[in-house]
């Protein structure tokens, strides 16, 4: 990308206090509700203060990138799309959690260093690691409220400075009185309810989309995402996920899940065994050999498949900061806030997907995709694009043998297909599709970052046995 940052920023919607001018017609009631948003709001103020310019740069790239999707559309559609995105970005500027969510999207893009501009990648990394938004006094009160005493009384040592920003809070190094080194994740007060409020507000700005035939499906997907993000605010749930996941791995797997210290954990504070190692990006920066890269990739994929097929849960939040390469070569998986459990119905769908994933036959794939995306026989273009995207998603698995995940052109093809689906508003799908898409792009982006060249089919074939499915007809 040759566009200069200054040009992109200049192209951003002008910041304005006059939010009403950007509200779609017919939404005065909702706007009134918005203005009556209960205090307290804006708890991400420090994040915004620390990252105002960075956030602008990120938003500018996002806007530029989105606009690219519409470059071939006719003038009216393009202008309409731009108007919606301008409103959305204005809205993001005024909201708390979704600004964080936008950063998360950006961070996913940041996994593609050759595709996303370098400045964008660096900007987002700074946002992720360098912004401690809670001061010590506030954090101390949160610990007191949650654990019943001050951190300096509960722990042998407690580092006042956060060493990482978590999606909904921040992480501090500490030492238990037993001597064990731990990481303590502490949540911003009230953030869970702020997420829900932000999503409610976002719905207002998506109202123009309700005129399309797929509005109900889009709304269901947004609601699903909103619900899942709200669940991410429950650290007790994350602790349960961590504890369950930990039982799935054994010494030879090369995968470590930190132990939860339940005595010092609540729904807002999560204390875990502290793993020491290199974050994926630090690992890659050290110019590891192809064999070392592949080794890490295999362990990550083993973890992903194990969680999926034995644990019946999907790991969604693939961010390089969530994985550590330990000195002994094991891989640590850190963040279990955004997990998608497969209940009976979803598990049955997973079973059905196993067939095209294994055979690679277009007929098998189309049968599954038609059901998943509710595609009618007369929707030929929708079926074509969805099938091509499905093929892109699953090819690395069904082909077998080593697959080169560093192929940039192939990678772009997947992004372009996804963009085409969005552009054509082929967004009718199961409500949990955004979470699954995030996981799909997430693991692919990590493989791309590692420039892995591995055989994922053989790994998957080992792990899928745990399901007990009868695969004799196609495997």
């Amino acid at each position, binding site marked *: 990308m040759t566009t200069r940052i200054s040009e992109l920023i200049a192209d951003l919607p002008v910041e304005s206090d006059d939010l009403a001018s950007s509200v779609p017609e017919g939404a005065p009631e909702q706007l009134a509700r918005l203005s009556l948003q209960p*205090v307290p709001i804006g*708890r991400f*103020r420090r994040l915004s203060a620390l990252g105002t310019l960075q956030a602008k740069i990120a938003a500018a790239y996002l806007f530029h990138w989105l606009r690219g999707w519409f470059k071939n559309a006719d003038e009216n559609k393009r202008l309409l799309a731009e108007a919606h995105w301008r409103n959305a970005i204005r809205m993001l500027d005024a909201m708390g959690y979704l600004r964080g969510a936008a950063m998360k999207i950006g961070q996913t893009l940041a996994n593609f260093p050759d595709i996303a501009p370098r400045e964008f990648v660096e900007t987002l990394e700074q946002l992720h690691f360098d912004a401690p938004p809670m*001061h010590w*006094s506030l954090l101390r009160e949160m610990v007191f409220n949650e654990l019943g005493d001050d951190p300096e009384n509960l722990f042998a040592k407690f580092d006042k400075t956060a060493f990482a920003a978590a999606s909904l809070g921040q992480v501090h190094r500490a030492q238990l009185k037993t001597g064990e080194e731990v990481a303590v994740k502490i949540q*911003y007060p*009230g953030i869970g309810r702020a997420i829900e409020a932000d999503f409610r507000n976002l719905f207002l700005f998506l109202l123009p989309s309700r005129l399309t035939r797929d509005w109900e499906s889009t709304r269901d997907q947004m609601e699903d995402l909103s619900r899942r993000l709200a669940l991410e605010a429950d650290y007790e749930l994350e602790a349960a996920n961590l504890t369950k996941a930990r039982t799935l791995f054994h010494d030879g797997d090369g995968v470590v899940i930190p132990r939860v210290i339940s005595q010092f954990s609540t729904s*807002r504070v999560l204390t875990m065994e502290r793993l020491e190692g290199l974050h994926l990006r630090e690992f890659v920066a050290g110019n590891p050999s192809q064999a070392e890269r592949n080794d890490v990739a295999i362990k990550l994929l083993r973890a992903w498949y194990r969680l999926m097929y034995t644990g019946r849960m999907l790991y969604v939040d693939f961010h390089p900061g969530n994985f550590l390469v330990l000195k002994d070569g094991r891989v640590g998986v850190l963040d279990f806030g955004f997990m998608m459990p497969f209940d009976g119905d979803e598990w049955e769908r997973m079973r059905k997907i196993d067939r095209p994933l294994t055979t690679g036959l277009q007929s098998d794939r189309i049968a599954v995709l038609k059901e998943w995306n509710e595609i009618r026989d007369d929707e030929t273009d929708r079926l074509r694009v969805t099938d091509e995207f499905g093929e892109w998603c699953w090819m690395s698995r069904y082909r077998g043998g080593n697959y080169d995940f560093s192929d940039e052109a192939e990678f772009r093809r997947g992004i372009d297909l996804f963009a085409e689906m969005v552009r054509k508003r082929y967004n009718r799908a199961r409500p949990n599709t955004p979470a699954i898409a995030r996981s799909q792009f997430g693991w692919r982006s990590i493989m791309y970052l590692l420039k892995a060249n591995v055989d994922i089919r053989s790994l998957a074939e080992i792990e899928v046995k745990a399901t007990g499915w009868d695969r004799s007809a196609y495997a």
Partner: protein
Amino acid sequence: MRITLEEKTATRRRIVAAAVDLFRSQGFDATTTRDIAHSAKIATGTLFNYFDTKEAIVAELADEALAKARGALAQATSQSTFEEDLFTLVATELRQLRPLRKFIAPFLETTLSPIVSMRRAGADDTRIAHLELVAEIARRHGVADLSPVALQMYWALYTGVLAYWAADRSPKQEDTLALLDESLHMFAAWQFSPAGPPQIERHAS
């Protein structure tokens, strides 16, 4: 019969303990001075020798809690910013006031509220004690003298946060922490803005 100071103190304690029990079990509004006297095993008239109203009982409890908070603050180490030190001050008070939260409203109304016209005796002492601490924190951070306007602004924010806290239904009143954080940030930003707090033009009347 002469009542010793010890007996007086014991009776006073019994009244306060009985009142707290009743406020907690049946609510502040539903509790009468007669109930309190009955529960403390004294005549209603005797109660009035100690407290004029049930509100005065809450005020005494709150004053004690705030004095305890000031004691705890004297032991605390100063944080890095004006805003953080102010946060510590209010958060320490909230910790001490927490057992009284559900019936703190009368104290806010009779003692702390900026709009109250009939202050109870001693109300000014409570306010002055708190504002002196604020002024001391400000001095520690390089503000020699907080203007009367700044103190009034601060007081409005402070009592607003306490009022919010009294009715906060969020888990463990976490929303109050966020509101306090926001409010103090706003106040500190105004106080330390590059141009300084806005100067008010004074006209001769």
